[in-house]
């Protein structure tokens, strides 16, 4: 008898999501605010339940789902991101008559990501992947009267469905050659795949399919457009949550199931990592929209994490896993700051255009000192300055790359980090050294709470990294069986 209590986080979230959807029918637009709090409480309960089951190692449903250190680690990443986004969205959806759908979709996408994190079978993985993707397509187009939001949704939808088609085609070959869809089963039978050219096709299709989700260059074209056009809270979810789903799926499929084919894909990931971080950082320099700049910086960060696949030592995987956690906090925080600034601009001038333009950050330190300080920490963390979470994860990842002999890869990555400091420091310059264009205003409470939580996450991981590093090591051990 399977221990269904292990799925308690998912079950709680499903029930809360369905309850919110039903309750939405009976609530007027002004009362829907409470649904956001309900979603937040549900996510918090799921977070506690997941933390309670940290040390479990079991499989469920005839081995199609596994609860292990890796899945718990990523589930906590997804739930934390979703919780921060939900708290901030309480303000964003205030008075919106579709707030119930918003929170329902947000929770469903979180459930999808969690299913992917514990998938031990390609069918489960694909279904979870699609659940998360379909919900986020709709969320990206949530502002249905805003042409930019709809364009973001359309681009995300077309590229996203193309990527699932590629992924499914790759999966079909993997299934055909190994005769099973179970991930450990594939790892056992991968010999047939490795000795046939079909194995190569499958690897290419899967890299493309996951690469679109992870936004690796050359599969990144949708990411800047979607992150810029989508509502800012949703950009945070996409950059910090949905992208990590691509990584956990790739960890399971490549590092566990297709480990035998690693000569085929390790070099590919090394090359992709190099182009991704270089292009992401170079293009980010010339952006004037902060949202788009963060989008390109997020592409560059995906390049750093992809190094873990190219190196594939236990230490590098630890670094990659830890990086996903720190990146989740840094990126969510940074996007939420952009959302607050957008709120500030709109409250100054109702018809403001280009609310995510860099000029709006001028003198932010005088107008909203807390937000400006948080943004400074987030961008410094993204560029990898101690004592932040970004520094610790980069340190582990890059030092393990040097240890394994891929010095050139580490050098390129470090040069890229230096390059990225230019555009991150520019934001700090705008916030602290340029004159403000208005008086001091206070942040709306939900945004402030979410930003402070993200800030706490970034600083705690940076200042006291031991438990997180140890925990990431446990997660990486699952991959190195």
């Amino acid at each position, binding site marked *: 008898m399977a221990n269904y209590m292990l799925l308690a986080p998912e079950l709680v979230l499903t029930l809360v999501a369905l309850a919110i959807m039903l309750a939405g029918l009976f609530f007027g637009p002004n009362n829907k605010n409470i649904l956001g709090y309900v979603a937040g409480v549900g996510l918090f309960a799921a977070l506690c339940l997941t933390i309670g089951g940290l040390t479990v190692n079991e499989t469920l449903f005839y081995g199609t789902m596994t609860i292990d250190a890796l899945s718990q680690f990523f589930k906590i990443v997804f739930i934390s991101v979703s919780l921060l986004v939900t708290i901030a969205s309480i303000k964003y959806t205030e008075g919106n008559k579709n707030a119930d759908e918003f929170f329902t979709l947000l929770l469903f996408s979180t459930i999808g990501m969690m299913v992917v994190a514990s998938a031990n079978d*390609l*069918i489960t993985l*694909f*279904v979870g992947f*699609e659940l998360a993707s*379909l919900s986020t*397509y*709709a969320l990206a*187009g949530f502002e*249905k*009267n805003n*042409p*930019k939001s*709809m*364009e*973001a*949704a*359309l*681009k995300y*939808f*077309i590229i996203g*469905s*193309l990527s*699932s*088609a*590629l992924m*499914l*085609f790759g*999966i*079909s*070959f993997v*299934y*055909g050659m190994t*005769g*099973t*869809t179970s991930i450990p089963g594939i790892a056992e039978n991968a010999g047939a795949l490795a000795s046939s050219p079909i194995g190569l096709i499958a690897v290419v299709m899967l890299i493309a399919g996951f690469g679109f989700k992870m936004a690796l260059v050359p599969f990144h074209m949708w990411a*800047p*457009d979607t992150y*810029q*056009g989508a509502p800012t809270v949703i950009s945070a979810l996409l950059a910090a949550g949905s992208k990590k789903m691509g990584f956990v799926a790739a960890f399971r499929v490549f590092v566990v199931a297709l480990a035998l084919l690693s000569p085929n894909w390790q070099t590919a990931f090394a090359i992709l990592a190099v182009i991704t971080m270089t292009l992401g950082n170079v*293009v980010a320099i*010339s*952006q004037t929209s902060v949202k*788009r700049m963060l989008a390109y910086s997020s592409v560059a960060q995906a390049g750093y994490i992809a190094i873990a696949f190219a190196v594939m030592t236990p230490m590098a995987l630890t670094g990659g896993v830890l990086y996903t956690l720190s990146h989740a906090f840094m990126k969510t925080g940074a996007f939420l700051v952009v959302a607050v600034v957008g709120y500030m601009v709109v409250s100054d001038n109702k018809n403001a255009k280009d609310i995510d333009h860099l000029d709006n950050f001028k003198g932010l330190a005088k107008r909203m000192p807390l937000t400006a300080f948080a943004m400074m920490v987030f961008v410094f963390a993204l560029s990898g300055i101690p004592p932040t979470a970004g520094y610790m994860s980069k340190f582990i990842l890059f030092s393990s790359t040097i240890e394994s002999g891929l010095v050139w890869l580490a050098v390129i990555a470090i040069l890229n980090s230096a390059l990225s400091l230019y555009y991150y420091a520019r934001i700090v310059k705008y916030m602290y050294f340029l004159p403000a264009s208005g008086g001091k205003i206070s942040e709306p409470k939900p945004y402030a709470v979410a930003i402070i939580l993200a800030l706490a996450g970034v600083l705690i991981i940076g200042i006291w990294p031991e438990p997180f590093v140890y925990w990431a090591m446990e997660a990486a051990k699952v991959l190195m069986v």
Partner: protein
Amino acid sequence: MIPLTYYLILSTIVFTIGLYGIMTQRNGVRLLMSVELMLNAANINLVAFSSHNNDMSGQVFTLFSIALAAAEAAIGFAILLSIYRMRDMIDVDNINLLRW
């Protein structure tokens, strides 16, 4: 019995038509059709391999992927419909507010 290779050739042809459509077509609905072709190519593969390997999980997978493709089409048409209401056309070349 039809050999496995024939199915694989068929699915590759269908997949390539879909990929070609994605790259050349500019109408939103045609793009959706092309994606569906690619998904169906994968479904052909799964069923063919399933019967070749004498293993049911491929057919189960196909049922899941058909259901997901239907959900995907529903979302896709919803997005296209709201764009059509806003602009009176769904030509993706003209949807270019967001650029670098």
